[in-house]
């Protein structure tokens, strides 16, 4: 004998299915709400170690994943401050962590976290005695951010014994010699950031470094034109437009990061420290 279906459960099933389908359809049109997708908080080191079951390597990896999944293009200065804190913590949990020093070198100093970058690289240089990259990046911090080529070159030379092949040893020594001899040059800095970008895996991270390098190349072009202007007119530029008026440049390059270029007191082009203020409406 066939059992007849109970009307009540069947009705409940239909109503529920309808309700579910309807809500899914409505939700598909609504954006996901979240407070702030990027780095919100960082816990004290002890809390992180305890959360990782006392395992400092696991604590380093957990913090490392947070740093790696943060989307740099949406990050603000306050996010970078948290990232700097996290990267310092990772350097303390496991100073040997390769991603940590690499990302620290590539992101932190460009975003106002020079001290944190120095800390991370110093720790990595001391722990990774087999690896010359941390010392190389550490030297670059002095060269580019402190405008101290002599100290930068000193760290490059420290890295030389760690290099396995003779060609790279020569290249490092050569670079150190150029830094000492010629002092800071924007083109040199750009070439180094280009090399870092070429050495990175494809993706947003590489694009980020490429934009940084492009910006330095633009600055180098402006500085070269300003030098020519001085040679031609016997004085420095007052405004960047002078370079266009004098026919030295077709147009002023646009800063890909929106800060723009300006002229310092000595009449040399530079990257603005802050983005231009929004025009009043």
């Amino acid at each position, binding site marked *: 004998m066939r059992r007849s279906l109970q009307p009540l459960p069947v009705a409940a099933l239909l109503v529920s299915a309808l309700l579910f389908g309807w809500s899914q359809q409505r939700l598909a049109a609504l954006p996901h709400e979240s407070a702030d997708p990027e780095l919100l908080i960082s816990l004290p080191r002890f809390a992180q170690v*305890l959360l990782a*079951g*006392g395992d*400092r*390597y696991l604590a380093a990896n957990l913090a490392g994943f947070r740093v*790696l999944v943060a989307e740099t293009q949406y990050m603000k200065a306050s996010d970078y401050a948290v990232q700097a804190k996290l990267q310092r913590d990772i350097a303390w949990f496991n100073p*040997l962590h390769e991603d940590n020093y*690499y990302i620290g070198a590539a992101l932190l100093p460009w975003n106002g976290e020079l001290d944190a970058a120095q800390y991370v690289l110093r720790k990595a240089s001391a722990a990774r005695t*087999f690896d010359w990259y941390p010392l190389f990046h550490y030297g670059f911090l002095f060269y580019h951010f402190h405008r101290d080529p002599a100290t930068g070159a000193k760290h490059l030379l420290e890295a030389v014994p760690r290099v396995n092949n003779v060609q790279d040893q020569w290249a490092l020594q050569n670079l150190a010699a150029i830094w000492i001899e010629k002092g800071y040059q924007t083109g040199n800095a750009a070439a180094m950031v280009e090399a870092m970008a070429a050495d990175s895996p494809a993706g947003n*991270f590489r694009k980020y470094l490429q934009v940084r390098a492009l910006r330095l190349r633009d600055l180098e072009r402006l500085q070269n034109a300003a030098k020519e202007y001085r040679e031609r007119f016997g004085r420095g530029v007052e405004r960047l437009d002078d370079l266009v008026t004098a026919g030295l440049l077709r147009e002023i390059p646009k800063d890909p990061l929106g800060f723009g270029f300006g002229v310092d007191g000595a009449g040399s082009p530079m990257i603005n420290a802050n983005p231009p203020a929004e025009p009043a409406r």
Partner: protein
Amino acid sequence: MFEFALSGLRSGLRGKNFQAVFILGVLMIGIAYLSGFFSPRHPKTVALDVGFSAVRFSLILLNLFWVQELVAREIDRRVILFSLAYPVSRASFLAGRFVALLVLTVLAAVVLGFLLLLAVLLVGGGYVQEFDVSLGIPFWIAIAGFALDAAVVGAFSLCIAALSTVSVLPLALGAAFAVAGKALGATIDYLARGADGDDELLASYDPVVGFVRWLLPDLSRLDWREWAMYQLAPGAETVFWSVTMAVGYIGLLLAAASLLFARREFS
């Protein structure tokens, strides 16, 4: 004692908890494999690093559940009275159970180790890391360190089971012991380096930690993963004294457990 070890092995492998935790361990190694993909520069190292943490976590959890299964629950259900009715000392019951625990730990470590090895070999596709991992002897020595670490935690849990009248206490205290013992190294390290210049913290915690280190073993000393991950071999002296510390502590705990167990009355 041999009989107790054998029956311990049998029920250890049959237990539902064992199967659940083992599956958890396998899943965690799967997570280790996936975590390798997060790393732009050293996917194999990150997978190995997370995998080592997973192996350690699983082995400790397994040990805690085995003690729960082989000792605490037997006491709880009064099944232990049948075991103690044999004309052997109570200490041999505990010793037998601990031997079972050790054999089970080694078995689990070997199986999880092979799974991790496979995961690390597969991760990263064709990407060649500049600094490769060592998956030979250094890898197995790291796994052995985690097994020894888990054995210390197992011995502690066994000691608690010998005197506790609440059956979940060995599990809870064992887990707390595992976390505290592992975090002790990081704490000592932090204080030894001047606590980031926090003199107040240093003044208040340094004597406490100085005292605690005589009670609690520094389990992070049994963590030799840097050899497999970064080719930085631990010093022979460090390894020797770390193993001695662990074996000494296990002996201490087992002796204390048998003393306590011998005086225990079962109603």
